[in-house]
């Protein structure tokens, strides 16, 4: 019951604080959202400086693309790549880019800190591939107009967020009902398994039982082994990673279109690859912070004598709920823009 109450309160909080997510290019925007008004302390001045830095990088990258077009110096290409990394890292600090999914996932699930890096990087890199694929298909093969390509990201976002919401809903259902796991709180079925690096596709061998499958990442249920237990951390949820990676970043699309307009598509693709690496740095940092945050929270609870395994179940539900809430909002935001 307490669990349900926590979820209910989290739901209210989310509804109270959640903004409508509609923003697009000058063309093809949806209606403006109603203004809510939660205030973040970091926002003051910080957003301005962050934006100013990105503007500066954007200006310099543009100029270097022109010099690649006009003469093609290697130095210009190197400059584009270096600056794109910075641009990606800074750009991903702003809301979006799968950070919500990554953070929620690692609140819900026990994992190693390396899993935070793997998941953050995979999402960012797949997002880069998605941008390249979209521009390749729509702008180059189908010869769509540039804004048509850019605005099409909304459709891809919609699909991506819908899939994430669906996966989150499954996680939430399992967390709430405790369905889909067969171990109880006294038995450590996995204790004899050798801990494997997270993200590795393990379990295909002899140990690939039904049970292993359920211990896999899409299953956020309580893990009685505790944070320090010997139980193997869940595998990364590849479905979730791919769903979150589908959404291309508008900036990656814009850079590719600019490269295309300057007859430097190859440099553009390389720039987007490096941009994605920069984003991976930022998103991974969020992932690692979430893993460590959860770990610390449970340790503190243990230290003060709270039974942390009961809390883990709540975390699984809260994390899953956040995934559903955030992705549903983003899905609505994308819907307005389609």
């Amino acid at each position: 019951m307490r669990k349900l109450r926590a979820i209910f309160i989290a739901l209210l909080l989310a509804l109270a604080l959640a903004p409508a997510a509609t923003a697009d290019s000058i063309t093809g925007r949806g209606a403006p959202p109603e203004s809510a008004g939660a205030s973040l302390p970091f926002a003051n001045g910080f957003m301005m400086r962050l934006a100013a830095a990105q503007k500066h990088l954007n200006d310099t990258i543009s100029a270097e693309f022109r010099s690649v077009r006009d003469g093609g110096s290697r130095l210009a290409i190197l400059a584009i790549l270096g600056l794109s990394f910075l641009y990606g890292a800074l750009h991903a600090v702003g809301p979006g880019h799968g950070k919500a999914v990554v953070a929620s996932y690692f609140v819900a699930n026990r994992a190693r800190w390396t899993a935070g890096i793997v998941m953050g990087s995979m999402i960012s890199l797949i997002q880069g591939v998605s941008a390249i694929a979209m521009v390749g298909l729509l702008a180059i093969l189908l010869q769509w107009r540039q804004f048509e390509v850019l605005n099409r990201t909304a459709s891809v976002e919609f699909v991506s967020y819908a899939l994430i919401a669906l996966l989150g809903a499954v996680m939430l259902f399992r967390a709430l009902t405790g369905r889909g796991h067969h171990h109880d709180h006294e038995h450590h079925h996995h204790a004899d398994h050798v801990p494997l690096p997270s993200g590795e596709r393990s379990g295909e061998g002899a140990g690939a039982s039904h049970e292993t499958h359920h211990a896999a990442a899409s299953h956020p249920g309580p893990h009685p082994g505790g944070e320090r237990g010997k139980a193997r951390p869940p595998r990364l949820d590849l479905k979730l990673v791919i769903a979150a990676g589908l959404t291309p970043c508008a900036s990656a699309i814009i850079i590719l279109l600019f490269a295309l307009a300057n007859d430097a598509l190859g440099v553009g693709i390389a720039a987007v690859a490096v941009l994605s690496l920069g984003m991976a740095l930022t998103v991974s940092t969020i992932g690692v912070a979430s893993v460590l945050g959860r770990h610390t929270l449970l340790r503190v609870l243990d230290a003060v004598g709270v039974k942390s395994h009961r809390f883990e179940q709540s975390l699984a539900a809260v994390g899953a709920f956040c995934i559903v809430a955030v992705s549903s909002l983003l899905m609505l935001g994308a819907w307005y823009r389609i």
Partner: protein
Amino acid sequence: MRTGIAAAAALVLSAMPAAAHPHVFIDYAVVLQFDGGALKSVRMTWTFDEMYSSMLSQDYTSHPRGPLGAADVTRLQKGAFEDTADYHYFVDVTLNGKPIEVKKVTDFAAKFEHHRMTYSFTVPIGEAPASGKHALEIAAFDNEFYIDFELVDKDAVGFENAEGLGVSCAPKKARKNTPVIGAVDTVVMACTWGEAS
């Protein structure tokens, strides 16, 4: 349990959705247009970043990178300007502390120079009285941060028919509310003119 709720709240907050980080960068400048001692309108100029400028010129003009013809300007206005009316053309303006709702702007113009697209348009101010002391604060601002608006470094403000009015303008820090990340500090152009009666 309370910690859990706080953690959940913090998480939801930190993970605020929206594509709210700038993808478009616009430098803007304003010209205060007086008539008979009263402020009639403000001419707003937007200069886009090179990447977005390139997209605009490729999609909406007949000679990418070249000078714009009248048909190009009309295409830009219809295709890539008019719908910003939904956002009050991103103009935030107050006269003597009272917000003015910008519903319609006039005299749209566009040019493409030095790899950049520039839009300009006139924002009517309405019935500003000619006498007394007045204060205007104006900024271009997208509270969703899809567009990053910044005052241009040089000549961010100009005047027409302002002789003898004692107009004085300076950029000023101001706090604005946004739906996504709450209050943010930004810069507005603050002007005063006229004599206290």
